[in-house]
């Protein structure tokens, strides 16, 4: 086969079916938006019951994490994600799904290295870089405060 990698990549692009952009973008918008507006509804309920705004939004996150973890356990979250794409990946529910699913999956490798060790295979990097960048930000703030 006397063709270069670049020529082959061109052939490959022609042969590969394209992603259905309209469908996936609509799915992401509707389901992602839906999860967020459910969160907003819950926030209103919590605030009405006398909670301060900050606590209410924190409890919203906790409620959504709970719902998502449960749906993951019931094997429903991945079926939603098939249509939602980023709509179920980007919200906090996607974070919870990424924590629960490897823990559940690798239960067969034991409680310590299976559940305990694999729990962070997907979200580990999120925590590592989230915290590190926030420390960097804190450092900058501190330096500006000092001068």
């Amino acid at each position, binding site marked *: 086969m006397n063709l270069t990698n670049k020529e082959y990549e061109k052939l490959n692009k022609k042969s590969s079916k394209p992603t259905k*952009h309209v469908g*996936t*973008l609509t799915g*992401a*918008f*509707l389901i*992602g*938006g*839906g*999860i*967020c*507006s*459910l*969160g*907003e*509804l*819950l*926030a*209103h309920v919590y605030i009405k019951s006398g909670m301060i705004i900050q606590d209410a*939004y*924190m409890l*919203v996150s*906790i409620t959504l*994490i709970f719902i998502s*973890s449960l749906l*993951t*356990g019931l*094997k429903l979250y991945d079926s939603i994600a098939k249509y*939602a*794409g*980023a*709509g179920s*990946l*980007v*919200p*906090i529910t996607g*974070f919870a799904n*990424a*924590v*629960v699913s490897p*823990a*559940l*999956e690798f239960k*067969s490798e034991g409680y310590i290295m299976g*559940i305990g060790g694999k*729990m962070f295979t*997907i*979200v580990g990097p*999120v925590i590592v*870089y*989230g*915290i590190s*960048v*926030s*420390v960097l*930000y*804190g450092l900058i*703030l*501190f330096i500006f*405060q000092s001068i």
Partner: protein
Amino acid sequence: MEILYDCLKAFFVGGIICIIGQLFINYTKLTPARILVTFVVSGVILGGLGIYKPLVEFAGAGATVPLTGFGYLLAEGVKISVEEKGIVGILTGGLTASAAGLTVSIVLGLIISLIFKPGDKT
């Protein structure tokens, strides 16, 4: 009526943030973990620059529920604790602010994986 209006705002802003995520999925070869890292780090930066706060005030859950909101939470936490505690606050702010979410995810992760069995995707 106000609830409906707030929910609509949350729907719209949250939906747009998810569309940005979907554009990453469709047009780049980024894996989900990389996309999540991008969102959280962007949240910290936007939070630090003071851009994300107005969005949270406008859209409520529409801005706090997506993972950029998690990054914003980290930035806000660091900001407040640096103001209160100085240099120590750099280290305690992020995790303190996100403690509830992380703890719940971890504990539920453990409980759910103890209760349920893995499925086969059919």
